[in-house]
């Protein structure tokens, strides 16, 4: 049995009387896309925050490639190889596309404490950035100011930045958010090809994408995983139908 790339062990988090995360244990195996779905308010973003390090769980742990990262902060986890894309694009709006992606390279290569040679003249950083941009088809827009990009292009840029980290695992928070039909199809195809590089933990609402992409699906309701399985198994699961699929579609 292969070792999971990413695993959470009984993560628990309460906000006062509200149990937002109820002993959640999920695993991400090599080469897979594992989708986490659930109705609004199920606790998906709380779970993501605990995995990425911006929220400390009350109990439970997270490990990456077998190593316990529970005590590490967000930046440290990123340096360990955990890449993340945000539901609402987090980008440096005043900077160009290239500058945004080079930022990823700076973090990845620990170049933050270089003070002299311009970042945009450093071959290593530029090469890494441009190859990531090429993969998401944004290379032509590299000198465009981020604020001028379309919504879809910004979503692509988010992915490009994550790529530069050459990560061990991707955490993607609703990458389809706000994308129309065409954009969703393109993104779905892209993510499909990405799984070979590093497995993806995918939080999504777009059911077409989820069923097209996911090897495994976990259903989160009221902070608790009520079912994990293949797309077919989940579709057939009665508890899931009642709690979620029945209402949404």
């Amino acid at each position, binding site marked *: 049995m292969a070792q999971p790339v990413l695993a959470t062990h009984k993560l628990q988090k309460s906000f006062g009387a509200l149990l937002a995360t109820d002993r959640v244990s999920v695993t991400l195996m090599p080469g897979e896309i594992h989708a986490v779905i659930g109705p609004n308010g199920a606790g998906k973003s709380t779970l993501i925050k605990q995995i*990425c390090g*911006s929220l400390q769980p009350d109990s439970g742990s997270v490990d990456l490639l077998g190593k316990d990262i529970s005590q590490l*902060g*967000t*930046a*440290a986890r*990123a*340096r360990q190889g955990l*890449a*993340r894309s*945000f539901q609402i694009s*987090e*980008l*440096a*709006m*005043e*900077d160009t596309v290239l*500058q*945004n992606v*080079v*930022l*990823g390279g*700076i*973090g*990845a290569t*620990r*170049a*933050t*404490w*270089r*003070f*002299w*040679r*311009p*970042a*945009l003249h*450093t071959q290593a*950083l530029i090469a890494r950035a441009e190859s990531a941009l090429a993969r998401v088809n944004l290379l032509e827009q590299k000198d465009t100011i981020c604020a001028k990009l379309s919504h879809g292009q910004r979503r692509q840029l988010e992915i490009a*930045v994550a790529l*530069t*980290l050459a990560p061990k695992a991707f955490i993607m928070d609703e990458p389809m958010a706000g994308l129309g039909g065409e954009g969703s199809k393109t993104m779905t195809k892209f993510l499909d090809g990405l799984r070979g590089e590093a497995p993806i933990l995918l939080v999504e609402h777009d059911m077409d994408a989820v069923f097209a992409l996911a090897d495994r699906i976990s259903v989160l309701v009221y902070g608790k995983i009520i079912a994990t399985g293949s797309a077919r198994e989940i579709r057939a699961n009665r508890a899931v139908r009642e709690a979620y699929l029945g209402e949404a579609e």
Partner: protein
Amino acid sequence: MRLREPYLNAAVLLGLIALPLAALLADAPFTITLATRAVILALAAVGLNIALGIGGLVSFGHAVFFGIGGYVMGILASHAQTYTPLDLGFVSIEGTKSMPVIWLSAMLISGIIAFFIGLLSLRTSGVYFIMITLAFGQLFYYFSISWPQYGGEDGLSIYMRNDFPGLNTLKPLQFFCLCFGLLCSVLFIQSKLQSAPFGLALNAARQTPLRAQAVGIEPLKLRLLAFVISGAITGLAGALFADLNRFVSPTMFSWQLSGELIVLIIIGGVGRLMGPVIGACMFVALEHFLGGLTEFWHVYLGLILLCIVLFARGGLIGLLTGKDGAKV
């Protein structure tokens, strides 16, 4: 009127050199002193701009470093001019009137204090950060007022300008060139910093700290270093200012001065390399001309500032080049 920023920058620098040279020819040494004043204030504001414009740290207490630089100069020079060493208990320091030594000391001490202030303040953000930096300014202000040994409220006079090897620093033009040389060096260093990975990361951390963390960058450490560098530069300016006026006083710590430094940057354009320089020149020019017209020129300064904040957010550089300033 759209100008390319590098051309604008060059034009400003050339203008800054040309003015005192013209004044020399016209035998108007006071103008050279004015220009020196502008250059020194510009240097102080350049320091602040690194923390404020690039780092996004709204420090309303940067006068702390200006004052520290001034008092380092004042203390070292006064011990030199009275030929008594400074007795710190465990070590006795001879005073000095050598500029390079004074500058290095001012930068070192300002930097160290910036480190500690930063350590305490940078854990807060938003209005709390503004308030805590303001409070530190007040702390030093009241401390210097009640420190009689170095003049207290009345301040400390240094009779002779300090020495720089090979120059006659009493001559206005020579002192101007010294200050101008320092300003240019610092501007050069800043432009290098800004385009280096450090600057890019700091600038990104201002706009989107979440994204910076998500790629493995720790905004707090970046900001601390930026704050230290910023404090050291403003400290250097303080030492020069005290030298220019041959006088140090607690007003160098005043919160009004902290506010004025921010105003200088805003007038020129936040985060832009030459923003503080343009701002300082405009400010000193306004101070001189408007001040000559009416005793109440601050009213007009206030109105201009109000208009800039409400209507011309990118400052002068923004107006001329069409580019907005950094969003802080």
